[in-house]
């Protein structure tokens, strides 16, 4: 079929539809309402899905926790296991789907500031800690890459430590002593509160993990016992785990029949299930909205049937002077497809606007993807063609002798 033939039919269909504007608008109303509701519902559920995903991420949906573990061939755990090396840490960072890598070295030490002396948990980590845990500073700065490189004597206080040692006083720039060694406070973290188990998450001091070994060396080095990794996307967790495992086994020269001497914990299965639920919800809601699209399609079919009846004489003339059934079918299909496509366009812009209104009601942002807009366009044109087939076929099958005698 030639392009010019299609264009010619579409232009003729456009002229016809414009000639009877009120009817065109009323006919496409069904499609408008259908597409509008699909767009709104998809936008709202996509928005909900996004919020749920964000919450899951803050609950650790993107994170993988690595721990050293030893296990014998019989499955019995050995006590001693290898810590992670600096080199392994570096290699993990190089894995494409890995975004942040944060080592965790936990200890507890005597902290003193002026006359206050307490034993507090000290966590050695790096600059990624704040990003992985989505844990910004309330004031001052977090430790940076250079602090970690240099093993600088700087620290960041948890909110509870800040309260106990400084109260409302400014801590940034002050020196505190950790086991007698002076550290400069460069910031303190926002409050996270208690865990469901009642543990105070804010009761610790964070320092570069490289500093730990420099000042606290008492014949034994602190190894990297835990690593927290976050991936670029929740869906990348599986791949990242695979790549990390492969890398670690190679680094450690583990043979095929040897078990891993490390362990990875992640929640991707839980995440998958929850996101699946929101997808089911989305499909369900758009299926309900699609019912109005079908009703709209039937409306188009109705009007096209009326249009064929009205134009019986014209069809008779056209067939007489040489139109084939293909020509007639295409003429009427162009009209119903254009009618529906027009309804689709109006529906998209209406749905776009109303999604933002609806998002105000439900209280979370609506997300309108180009994918859903493209799908709406295609679907409305499809409806127009599908429901236009019967009227167009009916027109093409008219007997020209009888049709031409029909009075307009």
């Amino acid at each position, binding site marked *: 079929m*030639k392009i*010019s*033939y299609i264009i*010619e039919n579409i232009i003729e269909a456009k002229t*016809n539809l414009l*000639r009877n504007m009120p009817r065109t608008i009323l006919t496409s109303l069904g499609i408008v309402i259908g597409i509008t509701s699909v767009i709104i519902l998809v936008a709202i559920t996509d928005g909900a899905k996004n919020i749920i995903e964000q919450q899951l991420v803050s609950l650790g949906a993107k994170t993988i926790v690595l721990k050293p573990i030893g296990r014998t061939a019989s499955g019995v755990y050995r006590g001693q296991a290898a810590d992670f090396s600096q080199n392994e840490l570096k290699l993990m960072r190089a894995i494409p789907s890995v975004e942040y890598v944060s080592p965790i070295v936990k200890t507890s030490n005597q902290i003193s500031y002026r006359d206050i002396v307490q034993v507090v948990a000290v966590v050695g980590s790096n600059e990624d800690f704040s990003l992985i845990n989505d844990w910004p500073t309330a004031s001052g700065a977090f430790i940076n890459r250079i602090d970690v490189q240099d093993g600088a004597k700087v620290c960041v206080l948890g909110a509870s430590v800040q309260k106990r040692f400084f109260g409302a006083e400014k801590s940034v720039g002050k020196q505190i002593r950790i086991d007698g060694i002076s550290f400069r406070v460069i910031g303190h973290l926002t409050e996270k509160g208690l865990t469901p188990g009642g543990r105070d998450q804010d009761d610790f001091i964070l320092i570069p993990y490289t500093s730990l070994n420099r000042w606290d060396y008492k014949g034994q080095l602190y190894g990297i016992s835990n690593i927290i990794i976050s991936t670029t996307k929740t869906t990348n967790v599986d791949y990242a785990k695979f790549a990390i495992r492969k890398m670690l086994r190679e680094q450690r020269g583990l043979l095929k029949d040897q078990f891993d001497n490390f362990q990875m914990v992640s929640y991707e299965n839980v995440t998958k299930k929850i996101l699946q639920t929101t997808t089911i919800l989305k499909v369900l809601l758009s299926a309900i909205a699609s019912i109005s699209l079908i009703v709209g399609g039937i409306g188009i079919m109705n009007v096209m049937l009326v249009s064929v009846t009205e134009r019986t*004489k*014209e069809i*008779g*003339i*056209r*067939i*007489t*002077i*040489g*139109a*084939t*059934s*293909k*020509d007639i079918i295409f003429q009427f299909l162009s009209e119903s497809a254009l009618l529906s496509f027009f309804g689709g366009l109006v529906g998209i812009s209406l749905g776009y606007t109303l999604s933002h209104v609806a998002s105000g009601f439900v209280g979370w942002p609506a997300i309108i993807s180009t994918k859903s807009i493209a799908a709406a366009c295609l679907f409305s044109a499809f409806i127009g063609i599908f429901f236009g087939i019967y009227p167009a076929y009916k027109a093409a099958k008219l007997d*020209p*002798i009888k049709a*031409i005698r029909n009075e*307009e």
Partner: protein
Amino acid sequence: MSNKTVIELENINKIYQTGKNELQVLFDICLQIYEGDFISIVGPSGSGKTTLLNIMACLDRPTSGRYLLGGKNVKSKSNDDLSKLRNKSIGFIFQSFNLISRHTAIENVQMPLQYSDVINKKERAQKALECLELVDLTNRAKHHPNELSGGQQQRVAIARSLINNPDIILADEPTGNLDSKTSKDIIDLLKKLHESGKTIIIITHDESIAKEAMDTIRIKDGRII
């Protein structure tokens, strides 16, 4: 006139089936029309002349008998093939003009080209203008049918029938809706077309029109008399 037959009917019968009743409207029609003929077919209403024209126009199929159009049997052709055949070889003129009211004169004239191989828009408009010039209506090209007189509308229809340069022109009571003065203009136009080499078949019940043709075929009760 040449000896080449353009239309050849052999023992054409047409029977309409209405429920259990059979109604035969044409009985063993045999007819040969040569290239360049100007034939009128006359008969009272209900005599079967329109059915005969429809069969010659490939709009209807005979119940039995053989119809050769331009030497080719049309029996085995599909409806779409017949549409294409009509588009190329037959021009139609009707009593009630049968123009499409929402299109202008020139658009109506161009319409058969929409179903032919001519896709170039300029070429189409050019051809349509030439045909309008033949019927002396170039100044009405942009007018809609309801802005034209009956005679003008019929001239537009004639221009439309000429656009694909067909060999045969079938006119079904072309002057039936026109006054005698305008009728004469239309007949003169048809004569002019005949002189330019077209085969013209005109159906009428008006004897004064019929006698303008080279030959008259009379039909009564489905039989040529």
